């Protein structure tokens, strides 16, 4: 059962918002609703979040992310559609029911931390527990634990004003952790922080998540952050979810121009893995084949090297065109296998980790799966071009980006993207 299940979730602000839902059903545009004085903030959002998943909702400012996340804990009541937590329909819960839900199931971390300035760090971390009427001893103990988890052990007696931004948000995180809820909502939780601190907080969140296995709905307008954190990402635009997928799916198969433009500036080396950019291992030669056969294969595949594999498709080494030509001339009957080693990586190795291989050798990188079986190769040129552009269909500039990259080595230029993800590197 999904931890969070939204279907057809719609929120329209304005007087008598239900009529907006009707208008949308009848095919009205957002602009038509605006003329009527209605603001459709979220339109027909449908998604599931699995338990233990980090689900990122990503979109420009004003695209309805905050409105969406506030319907998940009932801070806003949906105009239409349903939202379920753990299978429980919370769409029309009473006020008391919602309070109970927020105490037991969902907590929240805020963009500007929303700490109580007149209370100590420890009291802030214990705030949710205090609201629940947990005894002082227990809430101090649990707050202390939560503070230790976020690296603020011993800071309980300080005031929030004495802490840096990053530390304050750690308190915000500790407050949510101390409440002990399964689901955590994070609305642009790191957006107010400096890029370096932000990255630190992302690492910390991932570390905590590995340990705690919470269900996290994370909102951001920074694509790099989305890609770093999200198991899956929902791209939002003007209130609608335009694509849901893993970081790689969004990068490589953007559903439309909007997403494609968005992903143009992202640091692909962090997101892509060897498995996504590898090419089918066709330029290979059996180790018992002769130089003649190898020479022919090279000409067929227009390549200057071949991987030498066993019958079990285990990589033995590699031969270079020059050596093969020389062997053919000399009439040798064994392949001149190069002494140079072939770098081997698994499919889930991030692209960024491949560069030092590429720098160390001219050889292509072999992507091997179980039992060292060859699954694909990454020639050096592919590695470089993979960084430059999505292989998706409709490219924003109209060129068709099939065949990947190489054709547009200039496309890495960040900063010219519609939104400038502050941490584009």
């Amino acid at each position, binding site marked *: 059962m999904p931890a969070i299940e939204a279907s057809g979730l719609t929120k329209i602000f304005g007087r008598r918002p239900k009529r907006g839902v009707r208008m949308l059903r009848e095919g009205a545009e957002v602009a038509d609703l605006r003329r009527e004085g209605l603001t459709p903030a979220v339109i027909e959002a449908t998604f599931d979040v699995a338990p233990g998943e980090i689900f990122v909702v990503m979109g420009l400012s004003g695209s309805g992310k905050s409105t969406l996340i506030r319907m998940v804990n009932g801070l806003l009541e949906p105009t239409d559609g349903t939202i379920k937590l753990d299978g429980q329909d919370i769409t029309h819960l009473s006020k008391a029911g919602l*309070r109970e839900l927020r105490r037991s199931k969902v907590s929240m971390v*805020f963009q500007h931390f929303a700490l109580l300035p007149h209370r100590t760090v420890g009291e802030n971390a214990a705030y949710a527990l205090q*609201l*629940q009427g947990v005894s002082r001893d227990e809430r101090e103990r649990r707050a202390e634990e939560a503070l230790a988890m976020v690296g603020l052990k011993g800071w309980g007696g300080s005031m929030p004003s004495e802490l840096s931004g990053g530390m304050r948000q750690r308190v915000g995180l500790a407050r949510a952790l101390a409440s002990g809820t399964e689901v955590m909502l994070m609305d642009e939780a790191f957006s107010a922080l400096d890029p370096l601190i932000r990255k630190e907080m992302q690492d910390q969140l991932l570390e905590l998540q590995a340990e705690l296995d919470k269900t996290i709905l994370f909102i951001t307008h920074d694509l790099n952050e989305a890609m770093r954190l999200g198991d899956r990402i929902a791209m939002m635009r003007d209130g609608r979810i335009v694509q849901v997928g893993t970081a790689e799916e969004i990068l490589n198969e953007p559903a439309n121009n909007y997403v494609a433009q968005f992903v143009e500036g992202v640091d692909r080396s962090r997101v892509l893995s060897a498995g996504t950019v590898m090419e089918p291992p066709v330029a290979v030669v059996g180790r018992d084949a002769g130089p003649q056969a190898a020479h022919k294969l090279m000409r067929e595949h227009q390549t200057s090297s071949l991987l030498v594999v066993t019958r079990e498709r285990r990589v033995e080494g590699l031969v270079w065109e020059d050596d093969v030509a020389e062997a053919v001339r000399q009439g040798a009957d064994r392949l001149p296998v190069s002494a140079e080693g072939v770098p081997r990586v698994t499919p889930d190795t991030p692209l960024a980790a491949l560069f030092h291989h590429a720098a160390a050798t001219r050889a292509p990188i072999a992507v091997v799966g179980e039992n060292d079986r060859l699954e694909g190769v990454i020639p050096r040129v592919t590695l470089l071009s993979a960084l430059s552009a999505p292989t998706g269909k409709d490219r924003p500039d109209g060129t068709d980006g099939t065949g990947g990259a190489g054709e547009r080595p200039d496309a890495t230029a960040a900063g010219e993207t519609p939104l400038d993800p502050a941490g584009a590197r």
Partner: protein
Amino acid sequence: MTPLTTPMPPGLPRIPIGEVVADGITWVKQNLEALLDGLTAMLSFLVELFTDLLLAPPMLLGIALFTLLALLVRSWGFAVFALVGTLLIASMELWEPAMQTLGLVLVATLAAIVVAIPIGILAARSDTVSTIVKPVLDFMQTMPAFVYLVPVVIFFSIGVVPGVFATVVFALPPGVRLTELGIRQVDKETVEAGEAFGGTPGQILRGIQLPLGLPTIMAGVNQVIMLALSMAVIAGLVGAGGLGQLVVTSISRIDVALGFEAGLAVVILAIYLDRITGAIGQPTGRSLGAVLRRRRAETASRQPAAATAGSTTT
């Protein structure tokens, strides 16, 4: 003698607003006698109580207490002012009327706050209440202060109670306004945090809105006190006693010396009350209380640091 009002243009009906209000007042007087009596009893009891309390310690001890309070909540400099000011009041032989006025002001302020803060809270929560309350407050604030004295005298005859009552009505508006403002301007996200963790409206009010709105609410209280003080003097006209009575006497006798001295005592009281309430809303950090708290916090934080240092070396 020239008439006070102008004749209306011919043909325009005379709308008897004044008469209607007067009839209403008479009706209240006749039908709510019990309520008015109860109020009278309670207010006169409270004013007497406060005045007696203020006059209970011998004058010099009283002066010392005022000075100490100034030191506790504000600063050394202000304590010096308090000492000089209260000594001056004593030496002008105005100690007793000053304490009577102070007692009246405190009771009126308390009553005004008790009424104003809940109304302010309601107005902050509901736009409807806010739109209803606003014009009423405007009316109360712009109506000339003397006008309140007339119906009040009908209700309570003359004495200290009509004085308190007129003072409450006159001093109420800023208390309501600034309470509403203070609560409304509390950071929205912080209030949302209270809701997001399952806080009840009461918990959010007590734990977030009131403490974070406190500086503004205290600014309101401060204004209530200032208005109460000025009205308490005017209330001398209806026999409220204290410094107000001396001012009224000085006018009727054209006694400049008495008038000036009574006025000066009012000014000293005003400055004293203003600075004290201001310091509660926005602590200066130079008060004795703050200095002691800081010192205690420092020693407390030094201890765990020493403890951890010790544990790392062992």
